[in-house]
Protein backbone atom coordinates (compact mmCIF):
# COMPACT_ATOMS: atom_id res chain seq x y z
CA UNK A 1 0.00 0.00 0.00
CA UNK A 2 1.30 3.38 -0.96
CA UNK A 3 0.85 6.12 -3.48
CA UNK A 4 1.47 4.69 -6.91
CA UNK A 5 1.88 6.91 -9.87
CA UNK A 6 2.16 5.18 -13.19
CA UNK A 7 2.94 6.48 -16.66
CA UNK A 8 1.97 10.02 -15.75
CA UNK A 9 2.31 12.50 -18.58
CA UNK A 10 1.33 16.15 -18.51
CA UNK A 11 1.84 18.76 -21.17
CA UNK A 12 1.12 22.47 -21.23
CA UNK A 13 0.76 23.23 -24.93
CA UNK A 14 3.96 21.98 -26.50
CA UNK A 15 5.79 21.88 -23.22
CA UNK A 16 6.16 18.51 -21.55
CA UNK A 17 5.99 19.09 -17.79
CA UNK A 18 5.85 15.40 -16.83
CA UNK A 19 7.12 12.71 -19.13
CA UNK A 20 5.90 9.19 -18.37
CA UNK A 21 6.55 9.37 -14.64
CA UNK A 22 6.23 6.14 -12.70
CA UNK A 23 7.02 6.14 -9.01
CA UNK A 24 5.80 4.46 -5.86
CA UNK A 25 5.82 6.39 -2.61
CA UNK A 26 5.73 4.23 0.50
CA UNK A 27 3.08 4.54 3.22
CA UNK A 28 3.89 6.23 6.48
CA UNK A 29 7.08 7.78 5.24
CA UNK A 30 8.31 11.26 4.68
CA UNK A 31 9.27 11.53 1.03
CA UNK A 32 10.96 14.49 -0.59
CA UNK A 33 10.42 15.43 -4.22
CA UNK A 34 13.67 17.10 -5.04
CA UNK A 35 14.68 18.82 -8.22
CA UNK A 36 15.56 22.05 -9.92
CA UNK A 37 13.01 24.78 -10.55
CA UNK A 38 10.66 23.99 -13.42
CA UNK A 39 11.38 20.28 -13.14
CA UNK A 40 7.74 19.33 -12.65
CA UNK A 41 7.58 18.78 -8.87
CA UNK A 42 4.54 20.95 -8.24
CA UNK A 43 2.81 19.54 -11.28
CA UNK A 44 3.28 15.99 -10.00
CA UNK A 45 2.10 16.94 -6.52
CA UNK A 46 -0.97 18.72 -7.86
CA UNK A 47 -1.90 15.76 -10.01
CA UNK A 48 -1.62 13.44 -7.01
CA UNK A 49 -3.91 15.81 -5.11
CA UNK A 50 -6.37 16.01 -7.98
CA UNK A 51 -5.86 19.74 -8.41
CA UNK A 52 -4.62 19.15 -11.95
CA UNK A 53 -5.40 16.33 -14.34
CA UNK A 54 -2.80 14.35 -16.22
CA UNK A 55 -2.96 13.75 -19.96
CA UNK A 56 -2.16 10.09 -19.43
CA UNK A 57 -1.30 7.74 -16.58
CA UNK A 58 -2.89 6.68 -13.32
CA UNK A 59 -2.73 7.64 -9.68
CA UNK A 60 -3.51 5.11 -6.96
CA UNK A 61 -3.72 6.24 -3.35
CA UNK A 62 -3.51 3.48 -0.78
CA UNK A 63 -4.85 0.96 -3.22
CA UNK A 64 -7.72 3.18 -4.29
CA UNK A 65 -7.81 4.14 -7.93
CA UNK A 66 -7.88 7.93 -7.80
CA UNK A 67 -7.09 9.04 -11.33
CA UNK A 68 -10.57 10.37 -12.00
CA UNK A 69 -11.51 11.28 -8.45
CA UNK A 70 -12.02 15.01 -7.84
CA UNK A 71 -9.70 16.65 -5.31
CA UNK A 72 -12.37 16.88 -2.64
CA UNK A 73 -12.90 13.13 -2.62
CA UNK A 74 -9.25 12.12 -2.40
CA UNK A 75 -8.81 12.88 1.28
CA UNK A 76 -5.47 14.46 0.61
CA UNK A 77 -4.11 17.30 2.71
CA UNK A 78 -2.33 20.00 0.74
CA UNK A 79 -0.08 22.75 2.05
CA UNK A 80 0.85 25.54 -0.33
CA UNK A 81 4.03 27.54 -0.57
CA UNK A 82 2.17 30.80 -0.04
CA UNK A 83 -0.06 29.43 2.74
CA UNK A 84 -3.41 29.86 0.92
CA UNK A 85 -5.10 30.85 4.16
CA UNK A 86 -8.76 31.82 4.28
CA UNK A 87 -8.16 35.47 5.07
CA UNK A 88 -11.64 36.20 6.35
CA UNK A 89 -11.63 33.40 8.92
CA UNK A 90 -9.93 33.28 12.28
CA UNK A 91 -7.16 30.75 12.91
CA UNK A 92 -9.58 28.37 14.62
CA UNK A 93 -12.11 28.73 11.79
CA UNK A 94 -9.46 27.99 9.22
CA UNK A 95 -8.51 24.79 10.99
CA UNK A 96 -12.15 23.81 11.47
CA UNK A 97 -13.03 24.29 7.79
CA UNK A 98 -12.55 20.71 6.63
CA UNK A 99 -14.40 19.32 9.64
CA UNK A 100 -17.33 21.69 9.14
CA UNK A 101 -17.54 20.59 5.52
CA UNK A 102 -17.79 17.04 6.81
CA UNK A 103 -20.59 18.14 9.15
CA UNK A 104 -18.96 16.80 12.29
CA UNK A 105 -20.69 17.66 15.56
CA UNK A 106 -19.69 21.02 17.00
CA UNK A 107 -18.18 19.59 20.17
CA UNK A 108 -16.01 17.20 18.23
CA UNK A 109 -14.82 19.98 15.93
CA UNK A 110 -13.91 22.22 18.85
CA UNK A 111 -12.00 19.45 20.53
CA UNK A 112 -10.08 18.51 17.41
CA UNK A 113 -9.26 22.13 16.59
CA UNK A 114 -7.93 22.66 20.10
CA UNK A 115 -5.75 19.54 19.78
CA UNK A 116 -4.36 20.60 16.43
CA UNK A 117 -3.63 24.15 17.52
CA UNK A 118 -1.79 22.64 20.47
CA UNK A 119 0.16 20.44 18.08
CA UNK A 120 1.29 23.36 15.95
CA UNK A 121 1.77 25.65 18.95
CA UNK A 122 -0.82 28.20 17.98
CA UNK A 123 -3.29 27.75 20.82
CA UNK A 124 -2.90 31.30 22.05
CA UNK A 125 -3.60 32.63 18.55
CA UNK A 126 -6.86 30.78 17.95
CA UNK A 127 -8.98 33.91 17.63
CA UNK A 128 -6.54 35.93 15.58
CA UNK A 129 -6.97 36.61 11.91
CA UNK A 130 -4.31 35.15 9.60
CA UNK A 131 -3.05 38.63 8.71
CA UNK A 132 -1.93 38.98 12.32
CA UNK A 133 0.37 35.96 12.10
CA UNK A 134 3.96 35.69 10.93
CA UNK A 135 4.74 33.62 7.86
CA UNK A 136 5.92 30.65 9.89
CA UNK A 137 2.81 30.78 12.05
CA UNK A 138 0.58 30.98 9.00
CA UNK A 139 2.21 27.94 7.53
CA UNK A 140 1.76 26.00 10.77
CA UNK A 141 -1.88 27.00 10.73
CA UNK A 142 -2.16 25.75 7.14
CA UNK A 143 -0.57 22.49 8.26
CA UNK A 144 -3.06 22.11 11.10
CA UNK A 145 -5.89 22.84 8.68
CA UNK A 146 -4.67 20.11 6.35
CA UNK A 147 -4.16 17.63 9.19
CA UNK A 148 -7.61 18.30 10.66
CA UNK A 149 -9.38 16.03 8.21
CA UNK A 150 -6.98 13.16 8.94
CA UNK A 151 -5.79 12.92 5.35
CA UNK A 152 -4.51 9.66 3.91
CA UNK A 153 -1.64 11.62 2.44
CA UNK A 154 -0.18 14.99 3.29
CA UNK A 155 1.29 16.89 0.37
CA UNK A 156 3.43 19.96 0.96
CA UNK A 157 4.59 22.13 -1.91
CA UNK A 158 7.71 23.96 -0.79
CA UNK A 159 6.04 24.63 2.53
CA UNK A 160 8.92 26.65 3.91
CA UNK A 161 10.02 28.22 0.66
CA UNK A 162 8.76 31.68 1.53
CA UNK A 163 10.38 31.80 4.97
CA UNK A 164 13.77 33.06 6.00
CA UNK A 165 16.61 30.60 6.41
CA UNK A 166 16.48 30.35 10.19
CA UNK A 167 12.74 29.82 10.58
CA UNK A 168 12.90 27.45 7.68
CA UNK A 169 15.44 25.25 9.37
CA UNK A 170 13.47 25.20 12.61
CA UNK A 171 10.26 24.30 10.84
CA UNK A 172 11.98 21.61 8.85
CA UNK A 173 13.24 19.90 12.02
CA UNK A 174 9.82 20.35 13.55
CA UNK A 175 8.14 18.78 10.52
CA UNK A 176 10.38 15.75 10.90
CA UNK A 177 9.41 15.36 14.56
CA UNK A 178 5.77 16.00 13.78
CA UNK A 179 5.88 13.27 11.20
CA UNK A 180 7.40 10.88 13.71
CA UNK A 181 4.36 11.49 15.90
CA UNK A 182 1.60 11.59 13.35
CA UNK A 183 2.92 9.10 10.78
CA UNK A 184 0.77 10.40 7.98
CA UNK A 185 2.24 9.51 4.62
CA UNK A 186 3.86 12.76 3.65
CA UNK A 187 5.35 14.07 0.45
CA UNK A 188 7.04 17.41 0.38
CA UNK A 189 8.51 19.32 -2.49
CA UNK A 190 11.77 21.13 -2.17
CA UNK A 191 14.58 22.30 -4.35
CA UNK A 192 16.90 22.51 -1.39
CA UNK A 193 19.05 19.36 -1.34
CA UNK A 194 20.08 19.93 2.26
CA UNK A 195 16.46 20.04 3.35
CA UNK A 196 15.74 16.79 1.53
CA UNK A 197 18.83 14.98 2.80
CA UNK A 198 18.20 16.07 6.35
CA UNK A 199 14.51 15.41 6.71
CA UNK A 200 13.34 12.77 4.26
CA UNK A 201 13.18 8.99 4.57
CA UNK A 202 13.11 8.72 0.85
CA UNK A 203 14.00 11.13 -1.92
CA UNK A 204 12.65 11.26 -5.45
CA UNK A 205 14.85 13.35 -7.72
CA UNK A 206 12.90 14.93 -10.55
CA UNK A 207 14.36 16.82 -13.45
CA UNK A 208 12.88 17.91 -16.76
CA UNK A 209 9.67 16.04 -16.07
CA UNK A 210 11.43 12.76 -15.45
CA UNK A 211 12.38 10.80 -12.35
CA UNK A 212 16.16 10.63 -12.18
CA UNK A 213 16.44 8.47 -9.10
CA UNK A 214 14.50 7.22 -6.09
CA UNK A 215 16.20 6.18 -2.88
CA UNK A 216 17.14 6.92 0.68
CA UNK A 217 19.32 9.98 1.34
CA UNK A 218 22.31 7.68 1.86
CA UNK A 219 21.71 5.79 -1.37
CA UNK A 220 21.40 8.99 -3.31
CA UNK A 221 24.51 10.45 -1.78
CA UNK A 222 26.66 7.35 -2.01
CA UNK A 223 25.32 5.80 -5.18
CA UNK A 224 23.95 8.52 -7.39
CA UNK A 225 22.45 7.06 -10.56
CA UNK A 226 24.02 9.67 -12.77
CA UNK A 227 25.99 12.84 -12.69
CA UNK A 228 22.84 14.97 -12.59
CA UNK A 229 21.81 13.49 -9.25
CA UNK A 230 25.33 13.75 -7.98
CA UNK A 231 25.68 17.39 -9.04
CA UNK A 232 22.34 18.24 -7.57
CA UNK A 233 23.12 16.79 -4.16
CA UNK A 234 26.14 18.91 -3.47
CA UNK A 235 29.27 20.44 -4.84
CA UNK A 236 31.10 18.41 -7.49
CA UNK A 237 34.05 18.77 -9.76
CA UNK A 238 35.26 16.90 -12.82
CA UNK A 239 38.46 14.92 -12.68
CA UNK A 240 39.72 12.68 -15.47
CA UNK A 241 36.29 12.17 -17.01
CA UNK A 242 34.61 11.50 -13.67
CA UNK A 243 32.35 13.62 -11.52
CA UNK A 244 33.59 13.52 -7.95
CA UNK A 245 33.17 15.59 -4.83
CA UNK A 246 35.92 18.14 -4.16
CA UNK A 247 36.57 16.74 -0.69
CA UNK A 248 37.06 13.27 -2.17
CA UNK A 249 40.23 14.20 -4.04
CA UNK A 250 43.66 13.33 -2.69
CA UNK A 251 46.43 15.77 -3.43
CA UNK A 252 49.96 14.52 -3.70
CA UNK A 253 53.12 16.56 -4.25
CA UNK A 254 54.76 13.74 -6.24
CA UNK A 255 53.52 11.50 -9.08
CA UNK A 256 53.37 8.49 -6.79
CA UNK A 257 50.05 6.92 -7.67
CA UNK A 258 49.39 5.41 -11.07
CA UNK A 259 46.62 7.19 -13.00
CA UNK A 260 46.90 10.42 -11.07
CA UNK A 261 46.24 13.68 -12.88
CA UNK A 262 49.05 16.21 -12.92
CA UNK A 263 48.28 19.91 -12.59
CA UNK A 264 49.26 23.24 -11.09
CA UNK A 265 47.63 25.02 -8.17
CA UNK A 266 46.24 28.28 -9.55
CA UNK A 267 44.22 29.60 -6.67
CA UNK A 268 43.79 28.99 -2.97
CA UNK A 269 40.84 30.31 -1.00
CA UNK A 270 40.48 29.90 2.74
CA UNK A 271 36.93 29.80 4.04
CA UNK A 272 36.84 29.11 7.76
CA UNK A 273 38.16 25.65 8.46
CA UNK A 274 38.16 24.79 4.80
CA UNK A 275 40.69 25.43 2.07
CA UNK A 276 39.46 25.51 -1.50
CA UNK A 277 42.17 24.75 -3.98
CA UNK A 278 41.72 25.32 -7.70
CA UNK A 279 44.02 23.15 -9.78
CA UNK A 280 44.50 23.62 -13.52
CA UNK A 281 45.34 20.20 -14.85
CA UNK A 282 47.94 19.74 -17.57
CA UNK A 283 45.20 19.16 -20.15
CA UNK A 284 43.77 22.60 -19.37
CA UNK A 285 40.71 21.65 -17.29
CA UNK A 286 40.04 23.08 -13.85
CA UNK A 287 39.39 20.91 -10.82
CA UNK A 288 38.31 22.03 -7.37
CA UNK A 289 39.70 20.35 -4.28
CA UNK A 290 38.63 21.09 -0.74
CA UNK A 291 40.53 20.04 2.36
CA UNK A 292 40.96 21.12 5.92
CA UNK A 293 43.44 23.85 6.77
CA UNK A 294 45.54 21.39 8.70
CA UNK A 295 45.82 19.00 5.80
CA UNK A 296 46.65 21.83 3.38
CA UNK A 297 49.43 22.98 5.65
CA UNK A 298 50.92 19.53 6.17
CA UNK A 299 50.77 18.70 2.45
CA UNK A 300 52.39 21.99 1.54
CA UNK A 301 49.87 23.06 -1.07
CA UNK A 302 50.51 26.60 -2.29
CA UNK A 303 49.81 28.67 -5.37
CA UNK A 304 52.01 27.68 -8.30
CA UNK A 305 52.87 24.28 -6.80
CA UNK A 306 52.87 21.22 -9.04
CA UNK A 307 50.43 18.60 -7.73
CA UNK A 308 49.00 15.22 -8.67
CA UNK A 309 45.31 14.53 -8.07
CA UNK A 310 43.56 11.20 -7.51
CA UNK A 311 40.03 10.36 -6.43
CA UNK A 312 40.17 9.10 -2.84
CA UNK A 313 39.63 5.41 -2.20
CA UNK A 314 35.93 4.64 -1.97
CA UNK A 315 34.97 8.04 -3.30
CA UNK A 316 31.65 8.34 -5.08
CA UNK A 317 32.31 9.00 -8.73
CA UNK A 318 30.20 8.85 -11.85
CA UNK A 319 31.24 9.32 -15.46
CA UNK A 320 30.66 12.83 -16.82
CA UNK A 321 27.67 12.58 -19.13
CA UNK A 322 26.44 16.06 -19.84
CA UNK A 323 27.85 19.49 -20.16
CA UNK A 324 27.52 21.47 -16.95
Amino acid at each position, binding site marked *: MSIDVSGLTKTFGDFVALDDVTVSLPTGQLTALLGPSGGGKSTLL*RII*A*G*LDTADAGTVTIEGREATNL*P*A*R*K*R*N*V*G*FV*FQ*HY*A*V*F*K*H*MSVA*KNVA*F*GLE*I*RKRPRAEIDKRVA*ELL*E*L*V*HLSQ*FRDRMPS*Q*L*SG*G*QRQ*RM*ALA*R*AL*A*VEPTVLLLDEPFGALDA*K*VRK*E*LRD*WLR*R*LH*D*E*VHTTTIFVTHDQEEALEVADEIVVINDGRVEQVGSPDTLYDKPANDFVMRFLGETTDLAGQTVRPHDIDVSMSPGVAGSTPGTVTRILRVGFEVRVTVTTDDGAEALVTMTRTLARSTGVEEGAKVWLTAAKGATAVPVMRAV
Partner: protein
Amino acid sequence: MSTATARVAGGRPARVRRPASRHSLTKGSALGLGVGMIWFSLLVLIPLTAVVWTAGEGGLGTFKDALTNKQTFNALKLTVLSSLAVTGVNIVMGTVIAWVLVRDRFPGKKLLDLVIDIPFAMPTIVAGLVLLSLYGAESPLGLEWNNTRKAVLLALAFVTVPFVVRTVQPVLEEMDTDVEDAAASLGASRATTFRRVILPTLAPAIFAGATLSFARAISEYGSLVLLSGNLPNRTEVASVRVYSAIEGGNQQSAAAVATILLLVALVAIVVFDLIQRRLARRG
Protein backbone atom coordinates in the same frame (compact mmCIF):
# COMPACT_ATOMS: atom_id res chain seq x y z
CA MET B 1 -0.49 11.96 20.82
CA SER B 2 2.42 13.48 22.63
CA THR B 3 3.27 16.94 21.57
CA ALA B 4 6.11 17.58 23.94
CA THR B 5 8.80 16.93 21.36
CA ALA B 6 7.37 18.99 18.59
CA ARG B 7 8.40 22.43 19.59
CA VAL B 8 9.02 25.36 17.41
CA ALA B 9 11.69 27.61 18.74
CA GLY B 10 10.78 30.24 16.20
CA GLY B 11 7.47 31.17 17.76
CA ARG B 12 8.51 34.75 17.90
CA PRO B 13 6.21 36.88 19.97
CA ALA B 14 3.96 38.94 17.76
CA ARG B 15 5.37 42.39 17.38
CA VAL B 16 3.51 44.89 19.44
CA ARG B 17 2.15 47.49 17.08
CA ARG B 18 2.87 51.05 18.00
CA PRO B 19 -0.51 52.39 18.95
CA ALA B 20 -1.49 54.82 16.22
CA SER B 21 -1.81 58.06 18.03
CA ARG B 22 -5.14 59.58 17.21
CA HIS B 23 -4.44 63.18 17.86
CA SER B 24 -1.17 63.83 16.17
CA LEU B 25 -1.24 64.07 12.41
CA THR B 26 1.90 64.61 10.45
CA LYS B 27 2.06 67.96 8.65
CA GLY B 28 1.55 66.28 5.31
CA SER B 29 -1.55 64.39 6.29
CA ALA B 30 -2.97 67.40 8.15
CA LEU B 31 -2.66 69.42 4.96
CA GLY B 32 -4.16 66.58 2.93
CA LEU B 33 -7.07 66.26 5.31
CA GLY B 34 -7.70 70.01 5.27
CA VAL B 35 -7.64 70.34 1.49
CA GLY B 36 -9.77 67.23 1.15
CA MET B 37 -12.39 68.51 3.57
CA ILE B 38 -12.63 71.93 1.89
CA TRP B 39 -12.95 70.39 -1.55
CA PHE B 40 -15.54 67.90 -0.34
CA SER B 41 -17.50 70.68 1.45
CA LEU B 42 -17.56 72.99 -1.54
CA LEU B 43 -18.58 70.26 -3.92
CA VAL B 44 -20.85 68.12 -1.83
CA LEU B 45 -21.71 69.22 1.67
CA ILE B 46 -22.75 72.81 0.98
CA PRO B 47 -25.05 72.10 -2.02
CA LEU B 48 -26.53 69.16 -0.15
CA THR B 49 -27.20 71.27 2.88
CA ALA B 50 -28.80 73.89 0.66
CA VAL B 51 -31.20 71.32 -0.79
CA VAL B 52 -32.12 69.95 2.59
CA TRP B 53 -32.47 73.51 3.85
CA THR B 54 -34.82 74.50 1.04
CA ALA B 55 -36.90 71.43 1.67
CA GLY B 56 -36.88 72.07 5.40
CA GLU B 57 -38.02 75.68 5.08
CA GLY B 58 -41.56 74.57 4.53
CA GLY B 59 -41.38 72.40 7.63
CA LEU B 60 -42.33 68.76 7.76
CA GLY B 61 -45.48 69.66 5.88
CA THR B 62 -43.60 69.86 2.61
CA PHE B 63 -42.44 66.28 2.99
CA LYS B 64 -45.92 65.19 3.93
CA ASP B 65 -47.37 66.94 0.93
CA ALA B 66 -44.77 65.40 -1.31
CA LEU B 67 -45.42 61.91 -0.02
CA THR B 68 -49.19 62.20 0.03
CA ASN B 69 -49.24 63.48 -3.49
CA LYS B 70 -50.21 60.27 -5.27
CA GLN B 71 -48.23 61.04 -8.37
CA THR B 72 -45.05 61.83 -6.43
CA PHE B 73 -45.48 58.82 -4.21
CA ASN B 74 -45.88 56.52 -7.19
CA ALA B 75 -42.86 58.04 -8.88
CA LEU B 76 -40.74 57.47 -5.77
CA LYS B 77 -42.07 53.96 -5.37
CA LEU B 78 -41.33 53.09 -8.99
CA THR B 79 -37.86 54.58 -8.74
CA VAL B 80 -36.87 52.78 -5.55
CA LEU B 81 -38.35 49.41 -6.53
CA SER B 82 -36.90 49.49 -10.05
CA SER B 83 -33.52 50.54 -8.70
CA LEU B 84 -33.55 47.72 -6.17
CA ALA B 85 -34.52 45.19 -8.82
CA VAL B 86 -31.85 46.41 -11.22
CA THR B 87 -29.24 46.42 -8.48
CA GLY B 88 -30.19 42.85 -7.60
CA VAL B 89 -29.75 41.85 -11.23
CA ASN B 90 -26.41 43.67 -11.35
CA ILE B 91 -25.15 41.90 -8.25
CA VAL B 92 -25.66 38.55 -9.96
CA MET B 93 -24.93 39.44 -13.58
CA GLY B 94 -22.06 41.79 -12.77
CA THR B 95 -20.35 39.10 -10.70
CA VAL B 96 -20.92 36.53 -13.43
CA ILE B 97 -19.55 38.83 -16.14
CA ALA B 98 -16.53 39.74 -14.02
CA TRP B 99 -15.92 36.04 -13.35
CA VAL B 100 -16.12 35.18 -17.03
CA LEU B 101 -13.83 38.07 -17.94
CA VAL B 102 -11.19 37.04 -15.42
CA ARG B 103 -11.37 33.28 -15.34
CA ASP B 104 -12.54 32.12 -18.75
CA ARG B 105 -10.91 32.25 -22.11
CA PHE B 106 -13.06 32.79 -25.14
CA PRO B 107 -12.87 34.64 -28.43
CA GLY B 108 -14.00 38.23 -28.15
CA LYS B 109 -13.08 38.51 -24.48
CA LYS B 110 -10.94 41.61 -25.01
CA LEU B 111 -13.77 43.21 -26.96
CA LEU B 112 -16.32 42.46 -24.24
CA ASP B 113 -13.94 43.94 -21.70
CA LEU B 114 -13.82 47.14 -23.72
CA VAL B 115 -17.52 47.33 -24.47
CA ILE B 116 -18.61 46.94 -20.83
CA ASP B 117 -17.93 50.58 -20.04
CA ILE B 118 -19.86 52.01 -22.97
CA PRO B 119 -23.31 52.18 -21.34
CA PHE B 120 -21.75 54.12 -18.51
CA ALA B 121 -19.51 56.28 -20.65
CA MET B 122 -21.96 57.41 -23.32
CA PRO B 123 -24.04 60.54 -22.70
CA THR B 124 -27.26 59.37 -21.11
CA ILE B 125 -29.47 61.00 -23.69
CA VAL B 126 -27.58 59.08 -26.37
CA ALA B 127 -28.20 55.92 -24.39
CA GLY B 128 -31.87 56.91 -24.37
CA LEU B 129 -31.86 57.29 -28.13
CA VAL B 130 -30.17 53.93 -28.62
CA LEU B 131 -32.77 52.25 -26.42
CA LEU B 132 -35.60 54.08 -28.14
CA SER B 133 -34.47 52.92 -31.57
CA LEU B 134 -34.12 49.34 -30.36
CA TYR B 135 -37.13 48.98 -28.06
CA GLY B 136 -39.35 51.88 -29.14
CA ALA B 137 -42.24 51.92 -31.59
CA GLU B 138 -41.40 49.89 -34.69
CA SER B 139 -38.69 48.09 -32.76
CA PRO B 140 -36.42 46.05 -35.04
CA LEU B 141 -36.43 43.40 -32.32
CA GLY B 142 -40.21 43.31 -32.16
CA LEU B 143 -40.05 44.51 -28.54
CA GLU B 144 -42.14 47.64 -28.34
CA TRP B 145 -41.49 48.49 -24.73
CA ASN B 146 -41.89 52.23 -24.97
CA ASN B 147 -44.24 53.81 -22.44
CA THR B 148 -44.10 50.73 -20.17
CA ARG B 149 -42.40 50.06 -16.87
CA LYS B 150 -40.18 47.58 -18.66
CA ALA B 151 -38.63 50.61 -20.33
CA VAL B 152 -37.61 52.01 -16.94
CA LEU B 153 -36.01 48.74 -15.88
CA LEU B 154 -34.30 48.36 -19.21
CA ALA B 155 -32.80 51.86 -19.18
CA LEU B 156 -31.63 51.49 -15.57
CA ALA B 157 -30.12 48.08 -16.24
CA PHE B 158 -28.41 49.43 -19.33
CA VAL B 159 -26.63 52.35 -17.68
CA THR B 160 -25.62 50.47 -14.53
CA VAL B 161 -24.09 47.37 -16.13
CA PRO B 162 -20.44 48.30 -15.56
CA PHE B 163 -20.51 49.11 -11.85
CA VAL B 164 -20.40 45.69 -10.25
CA VAL B 165 -18.29 44.28 -13.08
CA ARG B 166 -15.64 46.93 -12.61
CA THR B 167 -15.47 46.71 -8.85
CA VAL B 168 -15.36 42.90 -8.75
CA GLN B 169 -12.98 42.37 -11.64
CA PRO B 170 -9.76 43.64 -10.01
CA VAL B 171 -10.47 41.74 -6.79
CA LEU B 172 -10.98 38.53 -8.75
CA GLU B 173 -7.79 39.14 -10.64
CA GLU B 174 -5.87 39.51 -7.41
CA MET B 175 -7.48 36.46 -5.86
CA ASP B 176 -5.19 33.51 -5.43
CA THR B 177 -6.57 30.29 -6.91
CA ASP B 178 -4.55 28.40 -4.29
CA VAL B 179 -7.26 29.27 -1.80
CA GLU B 180 -9.88 27.52 -3.91
CA ASP B 181 -7.58 24.54 -4.33
CA ALA B 182 -7.09 24.44 -0.57
CA ALA B 183 -10.85 24.39 -0.03
CA ALA B 184 -11.27 21.62 -2.59
CA SER B 185 -8.58 19.47 -1.00
CA LEU B 186 -10.34 19.95 2.34
CA GLY B 187 -13.45 18.42 0.83
CA ALA B 188 -15.45 21.45 -0.26
CA SER B 189 -17.59 21.25 -3.39
CA ARG B 190 -17.45 24.07 -5.92
CA ALA B 191 -20.67 25.51 -4.51
CA THR B 192 -19.40 25.43 -0.94
CA THR B 193 -16.08 26.92 -1.98
CA PHE B 194 -17.93 29.72 -3.74
CA ARG B 195 -20.18 30.41 -0.78
CA ARG B 196 -17.63 30.14 2.00
CA VAL B 197 -14.39 31.23 0.41
CA ILE B 198 -14.92 33.20 -2.78
CA LEU B 199 -18.06 35.15 -1.90
CA PRO B 200 -16.74 36.56 1.39
CA THR B 201 -13.68 37.81 -0.47
CA LEU B 202 -15.76 39.38 -3.21
CA ALA B 203 -18.53 40.75 -0.99
CA PRO B 204 -16.99 44.17 -0.31
CA ALA B 205 -16.40 44.71 -4.02
CA ILE B 206 -19.82 43.40 -5.03
CA PHE B 207 -21.57 45.70 -2.61
CA ALA B 208 -19.42 48.68 -3.45
CA GLY B 209 -20.56 48.15 -7.03
CA ALA B 210 -24.14 47.60 -5.92
CA THR B 211 -24.16 50.86 -3.96
CA LEU B 212 -22.87 52.80 -6.96
CA SER B 213 -25.35 51.06 -9.20
CA PHE B 214 -28.28 51.80 -6.88
CA ALA B 215 -27.28 55.43 -6.45
CA ARG B 216 -27.01 55.85 -10.19
CA ALA B 217 -30.35 54.14 -10.75
CA ILE B 218 -32.42 56.26 -8.34
CA SER B 219 -31.06 59.41 -9.93
CA GLU B 220 -31.27 58.34 -13.57
CA TYR B 221 -32.99 60.72 -15.94
CA GLY B 222 -31.54 61.04 -19.41
CA SER B 223 -31.54 57.46 -20.55
CA LEU B 224 -35.14 56.70 -19.61
CA VAL B 225 -37.16 59.84 -20.33
CA LEU B 226 -37.37 59.08 -24.03
CA LEU B 227 -38.39 55.44 -23.76
CA SER B 228 -40.54 55.50 -20.65
CA GLY B 229 -42.86 58.24 -21.84
CA ASN B 230 -43.09 59.68 -18.28
CA LEU B 231 -46.69 58.62 -17.83
CA PRO B 232 -47.89 59.89 -14.43
CA ASN B 233 -48.43 57.10 -11.92
CA ARG B 234 -47.18 54.55 -14.43
CA THR B 235 -43.74 55.22 -15.82
CA GLU B 236 -42.79 58.51 -14.27
CA VAL B 237 -39.68 58.35 -12.07
CA ALA B 238 -38.61 60.58 -9.18
CA SER B 239 -36.03 62.61 -11.06
CA VAL B 240 -38.69 63.50 -13.63
CA ARG B 241 -40.95 64.62 -10.77
CA VAL B 242 -38.18 66.84 -9.44
CA TYR B 243 -37.72 68.31 -12.89
CA SER B 244 -41.39 69.03 -13.44
CA ALA B 245 -41.74 70.50 -9.94
CA ILE B 246 -39.02 72.99 -10.75
CA GLU B 247 -40.57 73.68 -14.15
CA GLY B 248 -43.79 74.43 -12.32
CA GLY B 249 -41.93 76.85 -10.04
CA ASN B 250 -42.32 74.66 -6.95
CA GLN B 251 -38.78 74.73 -5.58
CA GLN B 252 -39.75 73.42 -2.18
CA SER B 253 -41.55 70.38 -3.44
CA ALA B 254 -38.61 69.61 -5.73
CA ALA B 255 -36.23 69.91 -2.82
CA ALA B 256 -38.44 67.66 -0.71
CA VAL B 257 -38.41 64.88 -3.31
CA ALA B 258 -34.66 65.36 -3.71
CA THR B 259 -34.17 65.07 0.03
CA ILE B 260 -36.22 61.90 0.15
CA LEU B 261 -34.07 60.45 -2.62
CA LEU B 262 -31.01 61.47 -0.64
CA LEU B 263 -32.32 59.65 2.42
CA VAL B 264 -33.08 56.56 0.37
CA ALA B 265 -29.51 56.63 -0.94
CA LEU B 266 -28.09 56.97 2.56
CA VAL B 267 -30.20 54.11 3.88
CA ALA B 268 -29.13 51.99 0.92
CA ILE B 269 -25.46 52.68 1.59
CA VAL B 270 -25.83 51.66 5.21
CA VAL B 271 -27.88 48.56 4.46
CA PHE B 272 -25.55 47.38 1.69
CA ASP B 273 -22.60 47.89 3.98
CA LEU B 274 -24.23 45.84 6.73
CA ILE B 275 -25.01 42.97 4.35
CA GLN B 276 -21.49 43.12 2.99
CA ARG B 277 -19.92 42.96 6.42
CA ARG B 278 -22.07 40.05 7.28
CA LEU B 279 -21.14 38.15 4.13
CA ALA B 280 -17.46 38.97 4.47
CA ARG B 281 -17.36 37.65 7.99
CA ARG B 282 -19.30 34.52 7.31
CA GLY B 283 -17.35 31.57 6.07
